[in-house]
């Protein structure tokens, strides 16, 4: 028992440290890929690390209507994604296996959005208020998509246990064996909405620099901005890992280290895809986004119905 616990603690550290270490690198690669698409040379691969160090070394200014809330929101943003990292498969066992389930995962995802709302509230500027109203609308329409995905996986796998969810449960079919239609539908839905989950174009509406000047982050600078930027980098990696774990878990059971390497290879490919989409799309408007999410919500409701009857 204690050995089991030790192992879990070790894997927990591994997950958290690993995402902290590689998230800026992933960002660096993404920036280089974007630059190449735009006929630019692009920054050094390690530029995001330099950026973070520079921001962390700057004066810690308190601004906005509530500096305390502002600080709290920045901590919350980073800690939330790091806790999610402990619920995600990263090529090894899931650290919080047995202590958490799908419901906690859904709560934590919502919390990550809430940190942005708090940041906007703390700033109190009219631009940040516009940003949080946009974030709120996005959350309300996006979170159900993810929740439904987990519920469908849970229905198929007969459990909300994390290990089950991240072992391809979404494609299992019940007694009416055959095509896991609901699983494929949700794969489509999550692919089409993933940019929004990680706040990348065309769904970077909440921050939209050229419209509302970074919205909720308008008052952030220095170390607190670094935490938020860091959180966003980590978020991309963790969410990509969640996506791969849910929808493409194959190969994870391979012999060490091949399973691990193959997992990160898949994640890297997926992040490259996200970058490519972001670089080739214009930002859409809030009302257009809501309509788009609405259509996806309809599809996922249909998928849920199918899953209930075992398809």
């Amino acid at each position, binding site marked *: 028992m204690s050995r089991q616990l030790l192992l879990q603690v070790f894997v927990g550290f591994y997950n958290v440290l690993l995402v902290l270490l590689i998230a800026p690198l992933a960002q660096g690669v993404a920036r280089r890929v974007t630059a190449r698409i735009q006929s630019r040379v692009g920054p050094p691969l390690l530029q995001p690390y330099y950026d973070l160090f520079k921001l962390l070394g700057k004066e810690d200014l308190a601004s906005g209507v509530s500096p305390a809330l502002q600080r709290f929101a920045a901590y919350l943003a980073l800690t939330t994604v790091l806790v999610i990292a402990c619920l995600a498969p990263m090529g090894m066992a899931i650290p919080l296996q047995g202590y958490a389930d799908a419901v906690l995962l859904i709560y934590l995802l919502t919390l990550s959005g809430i940190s942005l709302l708090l940041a906007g509230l703390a700033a109190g500027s*009219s631009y940040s208020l*516009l940003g949080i109203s946009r974030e709120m609308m996005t959350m309300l329409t996006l979170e159900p998509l993810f929740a439904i995905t987990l519920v469908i996986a849970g229905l198929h796998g007969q459990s909300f246990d994390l290990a089950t969810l991240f072992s391809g449960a979404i494609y299992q079919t019940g007694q009416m064996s055959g095509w896991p239609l609901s699983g494929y539908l949700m794969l489509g839905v999550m692919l089409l909405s993933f940019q929004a989950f990680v706040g990348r174009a065309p769904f970077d509406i909440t921050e939209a620099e*050229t419209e509302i*000047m970074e919205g909720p982050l308008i008052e952030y600078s220095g170390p607190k901005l670094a935490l938020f930027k860091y959180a966003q980098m980590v978020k991309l990696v963790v969410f990509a890992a969640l996506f791969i774990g849910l929808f493409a878990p194959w190969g994870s059971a391979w012999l060490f280290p091949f399973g691990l390497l193959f997992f990160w290879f898949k994640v890297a490919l997926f992040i490259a895809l996200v970058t490519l989409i972001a670089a080739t799309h214009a*930002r859409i*408007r809030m009302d257009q986004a809501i309509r788009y999410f609405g259509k996806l919500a309809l599809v996922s409701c249909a998928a849920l119905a199918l899953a209930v009857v075992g398809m």
Partner: protein
Amino acid sequence: MNSHTYLNRIKEKFAAGVLRIDMPGADRLLLHIQPAQMRLLCQFIFRDLDARYVVSIGVDDRPFSGDFLVLHNFAFDRERLLVSVIVNVSASAPRVESISDIIPAANWGEREIMDMLGVEVTGHPYPKRLVLPDGWPDGLHPLRKDMDWNHVPKDFDVERSFHFDEPPPGCTVIPFGPFHPTLDEPAHFRLYVEGEMVRGCEYRGFMAHRGIEKLAESVMGYNDIPMLAERICGICGCVHSVAYVQAVEAAAKITVPPRAEYMRTIMLEIERLHSHLLWVGLACHIVGFDTLFMQAFRIREPMMWISEKITGNRKTYALCQIGGVRWDITAELKNELRAVLRKLEDEWLDVVEAVFKDKNLQQRTRDVGVADVHACKEMGLLGPVARAAGVDIDARRDFPYAAYDRVEFQVITHSTADVWGRVVVRAKEVFESIAIIRQCLDFMEPGPLQSEIDTELPVSRMGFTSVEAPRGESHHFVITGENNRPRRWRVRAPTYQNLQGVPAMIKDQTLSDMTISLGGIDPCFSCTDRLEIIDIKSGQVRTWTQDELLAEIRQRERGGAGSLP
């Protein structure tokens, strides 16, 4: 209908009111009219004869005729006729009737006359301060001849604040600018927003005044001013420089050698190319599509290099002098320019193909920032904004200047009247510009670049000209004067009219559409803000703490006056 028919109809109706008629050329008409008849005549020209409003100009002519002059310029685009309605305003009671209630487009032009010359425009629907800074003392009017060009008013009131209108009920105020990522120059839109919907706005601009017109009228010489004119704008400087020299040449009846005309045409079109490419890039950036932003700038760069090779500068070509140009193009440069154009054409074809198929971009620009034919007429909207609404105007064809009468090109129009239409118009105009430059290169013959001017320019002649800038018609008006400089020089950049159309374009749209709607007119604030005198003393040296600023904002939001200057 030609100019004589119009003239006869005007004479018929206003026989008593017309004091004098000058026709400096077949395409220019100066109507000196009695003040009492001015309003009706303007209405007749604008409504019944369906002319386009161009600009209103105030002139302090007291040292010469003893009066102020107020001019309203109109254009008959199809008939190639520019008309100026001129009234003398007595110096003892400087008062003139407003035409803004008949012609909404005259709103700014008339407010500027009030600000700059102190001629009261009676019956103006919105007689608020437009150009002068907040703290500028009342009763001091910079363009009056009795104010020195370097006068610094002692009673400038730093504490005096501008009174904005009350927002409509249920709306909150979002301050857009003076500094915002999508504004490349300072301008302030006070947006009245309900949720995300913009319900109205108030504009306060003219923040980067350089006193260019006053400077030209007071200290510079005829041949210095083209260089000054060029610095009105960092993007369409050559347009202003050409327009100014053309206005002087028209007034003094100077002919320009053909090769110089071709040179002007080539540089104007190079300028249009780089400006349109820049705009497409910026528009894409505004809607968050940075890839095309970067690609547009990459494609544009060779245009800047070739400009540098021809003129010595990427921008600000220092091309024009009265009666000619300063730069020639050699045979090698011709070939190089042809090669650059070929590459640009190929690359732009790819971009246009991609853009026209891009549903994502159309989603963001269709039915956004709509200004239809009616709005174009009422607000005097110009250039790609008008052409995107199907208003077929282009000064290059309608009032041919330089070598535009010798080259063939299409005036591109579109029917959607939205930002998408403006994208299409500009994208296609790039090809027309390439074709124009090619024809110029083919047609231009060796010859002089400068006509001989061996006498003083005649005094007290009026000249005006329209030049098609990338953003629309740039209109310059000059009265020649003594001491080798003009008495009055008035610049009306296209953004001056197009900005007045923005409040109608952004009304009842979301805030996200506001930025691209404003971007859609390709606003050039430095062009618009060209006039007025910088008061260095008014620079706010006081630093405001955050609490003070917040208290200030809250006070203003509650409707209080606030104390920020």
